[in-house]
């Protein structure tokens, strides 16, 4: 593992580095990836470098970005992070993209999301994490529900893709819901080992 920051069973989170730029740029120009994000323009090498430099500098208190890496083979899978972090309201927005399509459907995104949510509550002392997901991103919605996010609002026609409007779902998870889940998970672990 290279610069591991938070380590899961199959993936780990680490700081983003310049070595990630080429993969990120390729993924941000892949329609299968960007159609699920609020991006609508081609991303140049320079723009992607600006994002990477910003992420490396870590000087914006409202934003934290991570690279998602598969432990086996140290393979870069995508990026995730928190944005709009507000330490008075103790709230932050969550975002993720798994750009390496060959690794889709293997649960890596779910595990990386859970690592970020865990970091938000345990390390940053946040009270609430929220996210926006387009209504046609069914895999995403399922993964977020599995982690414990609840659907809170439906923003009608807030997304435009393929010539028509779609709804955007707002999902949120509160600290007390997360604690309950982690307690339940550790109880399960104890039982299975005992």
């Amino acid at each position, binding site marked *: 593992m290279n610069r591991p920051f938070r380590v899961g069973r199959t993936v780990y989170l680490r700081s983003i580095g310049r070595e990630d730029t080429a993969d990120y740029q390729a993924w941000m120009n892949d329609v299968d990836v960007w159609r699920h994000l609020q991006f609508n323009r081609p991303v140049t090498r320079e723009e992607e470098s600006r994002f990477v430099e910003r992420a490396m500098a870590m000087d914006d208190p409202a934003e934290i970005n991570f690279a998602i890496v598969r432990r086996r083979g140290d393979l870069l899978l995508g990026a995730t992070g928190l944005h709009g972090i507000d330490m*008075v309201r103790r709230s932050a927005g969550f975002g993720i993209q798994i750009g390496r399509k060959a690794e889709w459907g293997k649960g890596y995104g779910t595990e990386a999301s859970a690592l970020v949510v865990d970091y938000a509550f345990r390390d940053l002392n946040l009270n609430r994490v*929220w996210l926006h997901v387009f209504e046609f991103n069914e895999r995403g919605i399922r993964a977020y529900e599995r982690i414990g996010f609840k659907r*809170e*609002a439906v*923003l009608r*026609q807030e997304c435009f893709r393929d010539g028509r*409007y779609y709804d955007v779902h*707002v999902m*949120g998870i509160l600290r007390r819901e997360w604690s309950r889940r982690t307690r339940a998970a550790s109880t399960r672990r104890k039982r299975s080992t005992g």
Partner: protein
Amino acid sequence: MVQADARRIHAPEAEHGVKNPYLIGAKVYLRPLEPEDAVPLSAWLNDPAVGEIMGIRRPSHEESARRFLAKSAKDPRQVGFGIALRRDDRLVGTTVLHHISHQRRSAALGVAVGAPAVRGRGVGTEAVRLLLGYAFETLNLNRVWLHVVASNEAARRVYANLGFVHEGTLREEAWSAGRYENVLVMGLLRGEWEARSGR
């Protein structure tokens, strides 16, 4: 319904004179915000009731308010207006479209009536109606949305009366007067606006 006839509000006896009316209603008009508006704006921002709505929790000085206005004026993703009374051209609040996206033809709406004496007199409602006309008829937007804290029932009523639909509730998204509060998301689509304004 949005008219831009400056002569209708010409009032030579007014202390400050007519100030560039842009969108004109029955009681109020919306006009551009100028650097000197930082003086009243700063006073309003120091009122907890207003500062909280705008997410500002630090004491305001005229200088910070001036910078805030200058920065907002340069941001292509927002359009802000001063709300002035036709009666005496007094600036009583501000209203703004922000997070404007021309790709999805969407924007967020915010309004703050700062002068306590004119609150609850339909000033904010009329200003919002003027701004919605601008959003749908001039900017050709498809959707206008807003956030309002659950306990602000007066504002919720105003928005519901204007046609906004409650789209969901963000749990504990606000920190207000020492406790967490839910925040309602309300949205208004172009078709709903047109049906109500008889178009």
